[in-house]
């Protein structure tokens, strides 16, 4: 796929050589290929369409650069637009001073990687000299509490859990209240996975949000998500006002186009990405790398700096 886009574009735009300017007509086949590439990367259909018309508008009339093949030039324009779409970057967790308690809350669909990400963030915080407290607020999934305890042990962070209650709002609330006593300065709430159309469970998230007023609410999104990413991300953002998105499972061969969809519908920054099951597999999100991945290209940036 990676090479095929470049090859296809190359031949589609071969006719361009010797022509001075990019025009809608001479770019048509190339644009079609780019559109296909975006759709195959799971970028939402609507986003793809608006994006493509913007690109066409932008590219038409541009002089063909001497140093680049026209195909590369068009890909370059697309690449730059994608980077802009997924930016700006903001990796900050907006932590308060250590004498206060910062509350981070994870939410998302079932199996997206919330619990693992709690462990990863906890580990990162410890390496930055913070004292995290993991909170087991998933009282639904069998052994969810045990899972968080295992992760807490692995990173050497305390885990707050209460097996006697069925009320995650109370668990979160108590954890935040106890945090100081437990020597923690950052609380990470691991909530149960839920469907965005489940009114009852979405309401429960809203109650946790209201009761504990987390400083940051992060949506954890599976990097392999398809077209439905827009629907779920929008619903979570409507219910909670997200502060960031963490995209997981990007260690595989998914093209990860959902990143664009999610950014487009929520407008909140993509902060981190999960690149493995191990707790050190958390990286800052980089729009440029992601754009290259979505386009199925290597690092286009270097190409562009040359131009």
């Amino acid at each position, binding site marked *: 796929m990676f090479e095929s886009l470049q090859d296809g574009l190359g031949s589609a735009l071969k006719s361009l050589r010797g022509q001075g300017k990019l025009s809608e007509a001479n770019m048509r086949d190339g644009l079609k290929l780019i559109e296909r590439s975006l759709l195959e*990367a799971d970028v939402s259909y609507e986003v793809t369409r608006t994006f493509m018309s913007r690109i066409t508008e932008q590219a038409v009339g541009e002089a063909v650069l001497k140093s680049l093949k026209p195909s590369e030039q068009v890909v370059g324009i697309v690449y730059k637009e994608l980077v802009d779409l997924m930016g700006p970057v903001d990796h900050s967790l907006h932590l308060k001073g250590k004498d206060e308690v910062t509350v981070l809350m994870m939410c998302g669909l079932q199996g997206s990687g919330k619990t693992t990400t709690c462990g990863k963030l906890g580990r990162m915080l410890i390496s930055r000299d913070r004292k995290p407290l993991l909170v087991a607020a998933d009282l639904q999934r*069998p052994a969810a509490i045990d899972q968080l305890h295992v992760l807490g042990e692995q990173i050497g962070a305390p885990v707050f859990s209460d097996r006697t209650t069925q009320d995650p709002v109370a668990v979160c609330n108590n954890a935040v209240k106890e945090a100081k006593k437990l020597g923690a300065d950052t609380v990470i709430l691991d909530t149960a996975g839920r469907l965005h159309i489940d009114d009852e469970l979405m309401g429960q998230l809203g109650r946790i949000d209201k009761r504990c007023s987390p400083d940051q609410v992060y949506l954890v999104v599976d990097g392999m998500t398809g077209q439905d990413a827009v629907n779920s991300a929008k619903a979570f953002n409507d219910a909670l006002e997200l502060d960031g998105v963490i995209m997981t499972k990007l260690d595989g061969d998914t093209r990860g186009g959902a990143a664009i969809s999610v950014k487009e519908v929520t407008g909140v920054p993509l902060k981190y990405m999960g690149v493995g099951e191990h707790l050190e597999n958390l990286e800052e999100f980089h729009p440029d790398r992601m754009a290259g991945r979505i386009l199925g290209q290597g690092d286009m940036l270097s190409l562009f700096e040359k131009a």
Partner: protein
Amino acid sequence: MGFFDRLKQGLKKTGSLLKTDVRDLFKSEGRLIDEAFLEEIRAILFKTDMGYDAVEALVGEIAVKMRGRVVHIEELVDVLKVKLKELMAQPESPIEFAPSGPTAVMVCGVNGAGKTTSIAKLANLFKSQGKSVLLGAGDTFRAAAVEQLTIWSDRLGAPIVTGSPKAHPASVAYRAVEQALDQEIDVCVVDTAGRLQTQTDLMAELTKIRASMAKQIEGAPHEVLLVLDATTGQNGVSQASKFAEAAGCTGIVLAKLDGTAKGGVVVAIRQQFGLPVKYVGLGEGIDDLEPFVPDAFVDALFADVLSDPVTATN
């Protein structure tokens, strides 16, 4: 409730985007099939995740059959459905049980797809059919994966075979099938750790787990189910291809179809690999599993398109 009703119920919870989209296209007197219309249909199909080639094939079909004509929505949807039903058609019985002795089932898939939960649901289904079931906790890697399956085994009243921590999953699978043989259990279902299909070592491990089951019973595992998350986009195609190669998958369980995702990637998978969908997951509960009915699935894909799909299709 039947498969279709449950599916429809799941889809109905949202303010159905497809319904308004397509309804708006069709005023009561029908609509001219022109380029603009084809574009709108393309959008609708894409949102099911069925993938570029399938969408183009369907839109092409409509173009050939209807371009330049004024049609009614039922006619259009019928053309699409007939084509898709043709593609999705598959044999009736989801599971081939071994003619004698235990039937061994291996379950695999990417991380968090719904494997362990689907195993619990399958075990429950087999039990309701009067079969005895044994579970094998072949995920020895993920935090509390064994505990998770153990809780399900308690709830089901089904025995479970677990390994010592850090045991090789193949040895757990081996012992699970062994115990199923010893205790004359009807079905032995083995869980495996989630893995991405690009992790070659972990994919090779699946081949080993498979082989260890075959050492106990010739021809085992009788079924190898790939659990696919219905929200998965085009990566599902890569999953199907690589898991089928490493583990010899016999079918798909499409989990989490109770969300708003349509799971349309199975259309692309079916088209390219012929791998049948055997069950769908429709919730987190033990009863939330149904055998896959291709026609009903196709109807449900378009359920929001028509105001009353049942009467429209009958």
